């Protein structure tokens, strides 16, 4: 029982972190970033090379990973996303761009990094026991760092100028334009931060779960589930979604046959969305 709770907490933190970047981008650009999982994967590889291969400090690696993905995100927004949105006749077409990018990044990674699974030596070692439940230091570290990131982002969007601008853009582009905010810059910034968060998720989880160039799609799907539960485009919703999925999985695996668990999760999700299309805290129709 204790173990289930601990598992749930750790999982919830991981998942919230995975969903964060996706929901941020969706909130600001109402663009579903299919390449989210691939960005997660890239983040993992950056940490793998900087930390495991070049043997630098883990936190340096995390920083490098955040910066790399931030640049990728900004570049994507300015070079690809804007262009397509400008010349497209139907906004659905942005979905095509999303899928195309995911495919490109994945194949790029396969060519650059190869097909092998990659993991990094543990940053911290040892296993703690809390009320009879096992909690390895490595997972505790991930837990703490994700929690910090989540809080950090919440503070950022609440209290900083660009953060508030992002919230404004998410609420209503036109009005924000009138308010004289440079929506273009905010969008780019938002995309960059979203990508960086995806990368950081990968960079953190590579220490406990390793990565390979093909892991992206599976991650994206998980992230989609979570933002759908929590309500797309709402940062708090993503965290909530992560908590819900994390505990459902932890409890499900503990009580029912594994193969049925995810079937039930998906069926549950569908029914939930039918009843409440905007998720727990989302605004209708995104």
């Amino acid at each position, binding site marked *: 029982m204790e*173990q*289930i709770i601990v*598992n*749930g907490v*750790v*999982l919830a933190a*991981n998942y919230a972190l*995975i969903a964060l970047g996706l929901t941020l981008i969706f909130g600001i650009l109402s663009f579903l970033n299919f390449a989210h999982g691939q960005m997660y994967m890239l983040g993992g590889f950056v940490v793998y090379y900087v930390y*495991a291969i070049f043997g630098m400090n883990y936190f340096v690696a995390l920083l490098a990973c955040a910066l790399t993905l931030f640049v990728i995100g900004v570049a994507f927004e300015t070079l690809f996303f804007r262009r397509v949105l400008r010349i497209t006749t139907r906004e659905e077409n942005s979905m095509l761009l999303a899928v195309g990018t995911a495919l490109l990044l*994945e*194949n790029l990674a*396969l060519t650059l990094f*190869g*097909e*092998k*699974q*990659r*993991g*990094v*030596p*543990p940053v911290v070692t040892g*296993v703690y026991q809390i009320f009879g439940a*096992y909690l*390895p230091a490595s*997972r505790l570290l991930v837990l703490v760092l994700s929690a910090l990131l989540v809080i950090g982002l919440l503070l950022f969007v609440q209290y900083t100028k660009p953060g508030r601008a992002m919230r404004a853009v998410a609420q209503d582009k036109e009005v924000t334009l009138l308010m004289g905010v440079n929506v273009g810059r905010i969008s780019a910034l938002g995309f960059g931060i979203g990508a960086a968060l995806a990368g950081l998720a990968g960079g953190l*989880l590579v220490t*406990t*779960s*390793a990565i*390979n*160039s*093909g*892991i992206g*799609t*599976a*991650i994206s*799907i*998980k992230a989609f589930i979570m933002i759908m539960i929590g309500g797309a485009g709402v940062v708090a919703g993503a965290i909530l979604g992560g908590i819900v999925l994390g505990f459902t*999985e*932890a409890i*499900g*695996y*503990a009580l029912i*046959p*594994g*193969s049925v668990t*995810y079937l039930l999760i998906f069926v549950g999700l569908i029914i939930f969305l039918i009843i409440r299309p905007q998720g727990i805290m989302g605004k209708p129709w995104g």
Partner: protein
Amino acid sequence: MSATSRLITTVALAVGAAAIGLAGPATAQDNVLKVGVLGVMSGPAASWGLVNRYSAEATAQMYNEQGGVEIDGEKYQIEIVSIDDKNDPKLAVSGAERLIHQEGINYIIGPNVDTTAASIVPVVEAGGAINIPYAFSKQLYTPPRSNSVLGMIASYQAAPIIYEYLQEERGAATVSFIARNESDPLNQRDEGVAAAQELGLEVVSSEDTYEPGTTDFFPVMSKVVSANPDLIVLSGVAPADAPLLIRTARELGYQGILSTETAQDIGILNEVAGEFADGFISVGGASTPEIRSDYMEEFIERYNEVAGEWNDEAGTKVYALEMILMTLQQAGNDALENIEAYKAAMDGFSVKNPFLEEDQQLTYVGTNYFDQKRQIGVPMVVNEVQGGEFKTLFVGSVE
């Protein structure tokens, strides 16, 4: 010109042009022996197909530098044509047709999973080709099927032997199974469960599975470990997941034995699981240091040049091309075009295993399982990880 007519011509031109472009190269010229590799070379399972390809390319290079493979006194340069099927039956079928009909290839290595392997059966039969799948489904190899040759030890062959060893040597009495929630691993789990019950092991749990792309195995492993069995079997585990499962189990305080019936990679095990991997039991090919021959050493070097880095999965996959070539040498050069000659040669085929130090015969096996010799007699090398290296526990074999 009206919009629609323009549209129609565009479509027509596009299709026509592309289709003609497909016509591709002519069929095999003389003194070149083309061998196909068909498998998944992208996506999460990319390593399965890529290792097949790199192994084949490495072996081919080694032969070609000797002037090619000699069959009936004539030397043939070996050319490897590989195709990525993305584990998609549609692509596997067109891939097989391309290899057989465009490239004029009669010998194909792969594919990697039941879905694709089953889908190309009609194609290889109609096209008169032999293929060497790395999928375990028995239907592929039992009559009326006769064109597919299992390339490695199947889980249902390794399982009983490994379990029996653990039962007798390590006193394992209770066992739990955990599998990835996909066709091949689930089938292998079911076969493992059957084997365990056969041996009178108590199966504690077998219902636990995990999804592809799981980032945290704690929840599912917690359940498995909580029953504290003597042995936990990772059924059909991908090299990608094995180290994570091992590490998780140990971190949850599991003290018992962990084993699998599939080939693993020591590099990944060390990278991800570190010292936790110690005592992990898996099936290897010819790659474990203390049994490999100089020829195998040479192959490993070559493989590293081709692939950039060694992968122990190649330890079992090294056999496919070598086997094809050696069988062709015995069957004679009419087997190049006519696989019946090849099939005929399979029954009596026997040579010294070039990859092993000790003197051991390499033959086609599988009669006990498929009622015909439709499996490469890869020695079943059972390893245990010790201090970041595979140590051979024992070498078994399949009849």
